[in-house]
């Protein structure tokens, strides 16, 4: 299969016209949309940017759907509207850092970020830094980091966009965005609301006798508002002020095998994020400063209403304050350096009213980055960076990374990128202080990783691009929750595993025209082998086995055919076999989740008027009615439909 895979890559290489293209000489950091050109500040980094078509297609979805469809990152989702986390390169959810305009959105309490609570509509640009490449922006992303950004449309004075979507299971989404202001000031406002009864029919093979059931207690709503103000003092100096409030209520359904008394179980999340950002692209020293705050409230509740018995009534408060100063200096046309200083403070309160348990904890963390990028030759650029970080009373003085990017042939746009890095990840505050089982003696997880990537892109922007990456990383002191070492009935956090993660990622996208037709095609494939290298006893069969819920194979294919104002899109996704036991047992039916294919088809029509665009789209999700489970014994809907109506006006 690997032979086949490489054949495909080389087919892609030889099938396109060669064109000379050197690494760009300019190294300034002005905000520009770079397509088909190399950015020296990204030399040696493995970066994925969902293209603009993906952003438009996924506009009404949440970030978990965008990432799972348009990047090689595997998303572990509990179903429609439910929690979703990223398993970047087979690592744990907490090993993916989610960053919004420079501010980390991972929960200091849990360590991870719920991507289902991040609407794509609230984001103007997104990119992923894979593995050690993430060190340029922060630490802790042993798998990688997801970066989300906002920016105004300076070219337009006023814009208004609105989208309404109705779908099966009494689902609805309503999105609005409007921008006001002139050349010096912009105000961008966004609002969204979505809800769903999420009561879908499924064939329940988790009970006796089998029966057609309806998923109960799975409804949800999410709502949010994002307000941005931008002040342009000069062409090169911009200040931004952003505030984001979001609220969600999600009922939590039971497993298919549940036949007990009625349960009321739900989770409420409230987020308020605010940030101030100042950027200066001019002068010999360019700088970016931001200061932000992130307040999160999480309420988990479970009761048996028949008996009026409350099992859990837990409230968590997370208050985080983030600050960064980033300086960039271009010493010559071939050398530039970046330094950044981060100082963050997190405070967490957890209280379960019923169990009378909880904890209060805080964390002060700081980090210093020095990064030097050098263009060694016309076709070779390198970077060397080092981070020093501290948290609580622990100091990690040296987190190094080196990388290089080399255009292999002068007349052919084929680039080899590589980097080698050390990285580490702090235990979450739950890992340290949760009662019972938190372990204040936990060490940070420590990893070393390397990437090798071949990138090829056509000279014509957007016509063809492909990238093949190989990665390998070893993570020591991997934190897991396991039964208490003293034999108690509860679980506790411990540094017990050594995990080896290696694999391949392949991505491509392109565009072709035939008569009045325009075809877009893109896809990705990931082979991820993530294994536990540590086994305590001789009977432990988990050594060398794939971590649970991580597929070895996953991929996506997207095809779009556009004819005048019509477009037809077909998406095909594949998720390979996943194990639910650490020993990768697969002889038992519930020790393995079978592979599944999901396909989606949509038809869209646009009407263009002066300054106004109206569009209508109808989409069939799970087109072929696949019967599958993302999480063991949690049903997923069959074929379902969405109808979307949108308009945008620009002046």
């Amino acid at each position, binding site marked *: 299969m690997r032979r086949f895979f490489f054949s495909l890559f080389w087919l892609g290489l030889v099938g396109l016209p060669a064109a000379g293209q050197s690494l760009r000489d300019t190294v300034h950091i002005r905000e520009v949309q770079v397509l088909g050109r190399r950015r020296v500040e990204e030399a040696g980094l493995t970066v994925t940017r969902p293209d603009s078509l993906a952003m438009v297609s996924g506009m009404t979805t949440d970030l978990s759907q965008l990432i799972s469809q348009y990047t090689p990152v595997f998303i572990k989702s509990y179903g429609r509207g439910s929690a979703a986390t990223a398993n970047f390169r087979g690592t744990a959810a907490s090993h993916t850092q989610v960053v919004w305009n420079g501010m980390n959105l991972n929960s200091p309490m849990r360590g991870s970020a719920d991507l289902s609570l991040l609407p794509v509509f609230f984001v103007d640009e997104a990119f992923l830094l894979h593995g050690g490449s993430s060190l340029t922006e922060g630490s802790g992303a042993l798998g990688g980091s997801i970066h989300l950004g906002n920016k105004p449309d300076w070219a337009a004075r006023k814009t208004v966009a609105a989208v309404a979507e109705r779908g099966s299971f009494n689902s609805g989404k309503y999105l609005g965005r409007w921008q006001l202001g002139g050349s010096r000031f912009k105000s961008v406002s966004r609002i969204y609301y979505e809800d769903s009864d999420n009561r879908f029919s499924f064939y329940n093979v988790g009970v006796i006798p089998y029966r057609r059931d309806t998923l109960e207690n799975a409804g949800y709503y999410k709502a949010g508002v994002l307000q941005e103000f931008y002040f342009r003092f000069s062409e090169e100096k911009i200040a931004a002020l952003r505030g984001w409030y979001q609220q969600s209520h999600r009922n939590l359904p039971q*497993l298919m095998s549940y036949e007990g*008394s009625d349960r009321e179980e739900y989770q409420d999340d409230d987020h308020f994020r605010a940030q101030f950002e100042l950027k200066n692209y001019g002068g010999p020293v360019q700088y970016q400063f931001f200061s932000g705050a992130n307040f999160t409230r999480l309420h988990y509740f479970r009761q048996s209403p028949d*008996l009026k018995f409350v099992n859990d009534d837990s409230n968590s408060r997370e208050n985080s304050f983030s600050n960064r100063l980033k300086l960039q200096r271009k010493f010559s046309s071939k050398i530039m350096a970046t330094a950044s200083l981060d100082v963050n403070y997190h405070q967490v309160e957890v209280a379960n009213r019923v169990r009378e*348990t909880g904890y209060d904890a805080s964390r002060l963390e700081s980090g210093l980055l020095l990064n030097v990028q050098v263009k060694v030759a016309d076709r070779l650029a390198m970077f060397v960076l080092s981070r020093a970080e501290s948290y609580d009373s622990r100091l990690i003085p040296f987190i190094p990374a080196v990388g290089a990017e080399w255009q292999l042939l002068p007349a052919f746009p084929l680039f080899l990128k590589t980097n080698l890095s050390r990285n580490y990840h702090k235990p979450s505050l739950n890992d340290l202080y949760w009662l019972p089982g938190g372990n204040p003696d936990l060490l940070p997880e420590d990893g070393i990783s390397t990437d090798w990537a071949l990138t090829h892109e056509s000279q014509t922007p957007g016509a063809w691009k492909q990238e093949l990456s190989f990665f390998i990383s070893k993570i020591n002191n991997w934190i897991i929750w396991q039964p208490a070492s003293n034999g108690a009935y509860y679980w506790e956090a411990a540094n017990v595993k050594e995990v080896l993660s290696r694999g391949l990622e392949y991505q491509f996208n392109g565009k072709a025209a035939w008569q009045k037709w325009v075809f877009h095609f893109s896809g990705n*494939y990931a082979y991820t082998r993530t294994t536990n290298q540590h086994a305590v006893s001789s009977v432990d069969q988990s050594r060398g086995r794939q971590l649970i819920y991580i597929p070895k194979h996953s991929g996506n294919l997207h095809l779009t055919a556009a004819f005048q104002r019509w477009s037809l899109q077909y998406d095909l996704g594949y998720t390979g076999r996943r194990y639910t036991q650490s020993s990768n047992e697969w002889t038992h039916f519930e020790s393995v989740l079978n592979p599944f294919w999901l396909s989606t088809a949509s038809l869209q029509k646009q009407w263009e008027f002066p300054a106004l665009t109206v569009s209508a789209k109808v989409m069939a999700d799970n087109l072929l009615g696949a019967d599958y489970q993302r999480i063991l014994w949690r049903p997923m809907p069959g074929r379902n439909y969405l109808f979307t109506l949108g308009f945008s006006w620009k002046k």
Partner: protein
Amino acid sequence: MKTLKYLSFILLVLAVACEEEPVEVVFADLGKRSGVFISCEGNFMYGNASLSFYDKVNKKVYNQVFYARNRAPLGDVAQSLASDGKKLYVVVNNSGKIYVLDPVTLEYRGAVTGLVSPRYIHFVSAEKAYVSDLYARQITIINPQNLQKTGVIDVSDGSDNSSRHPTETFVQAGKWLFVSCWSYDNTLLVIDPEKDQVVDSVKVPKQPQKMVLDKNGKIWVLTDGSYKGAPGGYENPALVRIDPETRTVEQIFRWSQEARHPGDLDINPARDTLLVVAGGFYKMGVDDSRLPAAPFIAAGNRLFFSAGVDPQSGEIYLADAVDYAQNAMVYRFSPGGAVIDSFRVGISPGDYLFN
């Protein structure tokens, strides 16, 4: 060339999807054989509980026997097993139900559903059984004949949730039925099975769970002491001897702070020796005046999770949960501690029912 590229990718995706299907599990009627049923809890919220059967004579284990016979999963957290001589009962805690099976063929015969968090079942008569519950603040009364719920025994003390009585295991001493109240509790309730009423209670150290009756008619209770930082406080685990006649605590044997947390309590067929899983596997005579200093079977790097003692032979079945995320290893020992056999069952084997 471009067509070839599209086709290549589709073929690639198809190629990676061609994987094998799991192997079918096949077995014969087991209930006629001499052996032990073992319920495996699985992982909480995974719904991967299972039922195994070990054939003592042929030294052969059959896993996933519930699914193999009934083509449905057992559910989420198989807490305990029981038999009334006519049917086999599997209490599936987080599925809120009890599966009732033919004891020979393991065919589904029915289910008691609509429960809150069932833990253990105790048969009072052919028409009456009690089901303990972690969260219901009541013991559910069922009729094993028709599997209908016929009533409840209110065990709430009238205060709010934090002082509930989460009922756990049962032990019958003469006319009276004792039930331990485990989670954040420190009480044994005394029930009159004729009147279906709580008639008395006994205060014991924190978190009483497993109980056995010895040859002297005394009740032994294993308490785990909760955990450090728990709202009601923590204390060292203990073995507690109760006189069921006077309903008083006669003696408390405290485990030292260094000792591993106790997890399971059994008694040998002669009912003169207590068998305790507490890191290692310990033996203690019911007339001994102190806790054993050294384990009868040392754990080494094994995670002893539960034990079952054959009521006829006295052989010991001791489960190593390994990492609690893979099929566990069960060791079969002679009463003298010699290894007879070892075999794998499902995840986290918790209860044993000898056939």
